[in-house]
């Protein structure tokens, strides 16, 4: 499997990271190095093996489905790059 520049551009888009066009060849080449390394996994016989879900076998705890937290709007907004009138502010989303 070899990654070309258009695949690299697609991955960057999916990851929401802006990559300039002139940086795509180097990025594609780095991906290919890493994926070449990962390809070794194809040598392993994984027939009938379950994919790991949890490394320590334990039952996750349950609790009542009730509100246990809240009423801290100021704290939640305190680190926002742009907060207005009690909301997170973002550029226009809908035309």
């Amino acid at each position: 499997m070899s990654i070309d520049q258009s695949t690299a551009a697609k991955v960057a888009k999916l990851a929401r990271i802006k990559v300039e066009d002139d940086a795509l060849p180097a990025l594609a080449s780095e991906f290919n190095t890493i994926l070449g390394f990962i390809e070794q996994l194809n040598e392993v016989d994984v027939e009938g093996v379950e994919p790991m879900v949890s490394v320590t076998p334990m039952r996750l705890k349950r609790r009542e489905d009730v509100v246990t937290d809240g009423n801290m709007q100021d704290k939640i907004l305190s680190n926002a790059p742009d907060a207005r009138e009690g909301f997170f502010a973002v550029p226009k989303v809908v035309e």
Partner: protein
Amino acid sequence: MSDLNKLGLAEARDALRKGETTSVELTEACLKAIDAADALNAFVHKTPEIALDRAKAADDRIKGGDAPAMCGLPIGIKDLFCTKGVPSQAASRILEGFKPEYESTVSQQLADAGAVMLGKLNMDEFAMGSSNETSVYGNAVSPWRRGNDDTPLTPGGSSGGSAAAVAADLCLAATGTDTGGSIRQPAAFTGITGIKPTYGRCSRWGIVAFASSLDQAGPMTKNVRDAAIMLEAMCGHDPKDSTSADLPVPNFEAMLTGDIKGKKIGIPKEYRMEGMPAEIEKLWADGADMLRDAGAEIVDISLPHTQYALPAYYVIAPAEASSNLARYDGVRYGRRAQLAQGDGITEMYEKTRAEGFGHEVQRRVMVGTYVLSAGFYDAYYNRARKVRTLIKKDFEDVFAAGVDAILTPATPSAAFGLGEMTEADPVQMYLNDVFTVTVNLAGLPGISVPAGLDKQGLPLGLQLIGRPWEEGDLLNTAYALESAAGFVAKPGKWW
């Protein structure tokens, strides 16, 4: 008492209890050492006011007879831990200016036990790196040098600032985190002790997430006894982390008897890598002899899927990272890029993440995005998770055969020079974690103990891997190894 910053946790605790010194004196000695060590770039946010306030409070507690294990002991906290009101940015530009409104469970437990926070420690960005060269704060520098050669060396990574600070006696101990070796490799590079406990021992709540199924916090200390003391204070069930184990935390220090008679120690043949330096090979053999002399039985074992651990890790960790790091979108916290006229929300995400994440983080997020994308999920991600099952089973099989612990080298080499790996492809850097990453994939406890110096005068470490939840037994074996190795070297002060 002089040179109070050079004490370990146990020594300082005992001195405090006897009234031979005070927490304020210990803290002032560390703050002075920190201010004189800017060349190491280990402490990246200093918190002297918080430190002195906590030291005074600790002295009052000690006077009142209420002195838990860590009471009054000055430590450093890796920048990955959220600390209330104190910058916590995972060494990333994207979290510039972020001051959490809350405290991570582990740092809270340490504070409750009376520990004194001196400041935040340098690290690789989002804990992604093995040399502390991906940090927005710049490189942390090891206090160690190759003889009289003044080439700056890496303290290792990702917990490079923690390792440099403890090795240079800027603090008595520090917190680290370990996703693929990030406690054990820097500990080995700097001649200190570092333990990654069993997955689920320490709460991950409030620790900036990298790869949630692999991340664990642990202590980085000057010796094994200190690791036992500090680990006990960090561990325990936390309702805020559903993967933290609801198991009793033993008194680890009380388990340090040094008696390992009859213990079965496995030597895995797959860890004998081609091209391994002779010094590492000798250190490993010497370590086995020391444990044998202490009464342990040394047995050859096989962990057949070892060579597939790193490739599996470099699917699973980036996949989880791409998911975890999706939260850095320039909306709720941290940095937002300057936008151009007409830019919409997609441009805001893309520009913010391009300028906020460093190169290695961008690369891993994109690799993770790729292996999770439609059409490749089964071929890469699911296959890696199946291989992970097999890697864990390798360990289960040897433990079922009666092996108590496994001895391996901690790293494939001693510390390298900062910048020396820049030209290498990323996979070369990833090989640093070849001996440690299996332990994260299997969720096991692992400890790195300094065991010798190479011919350049740099520290080398040995790793012991234990059974799940048996950190106490593992620490005791490490204690026996430490006693036999008698490592006492310290870096000469040049900074």
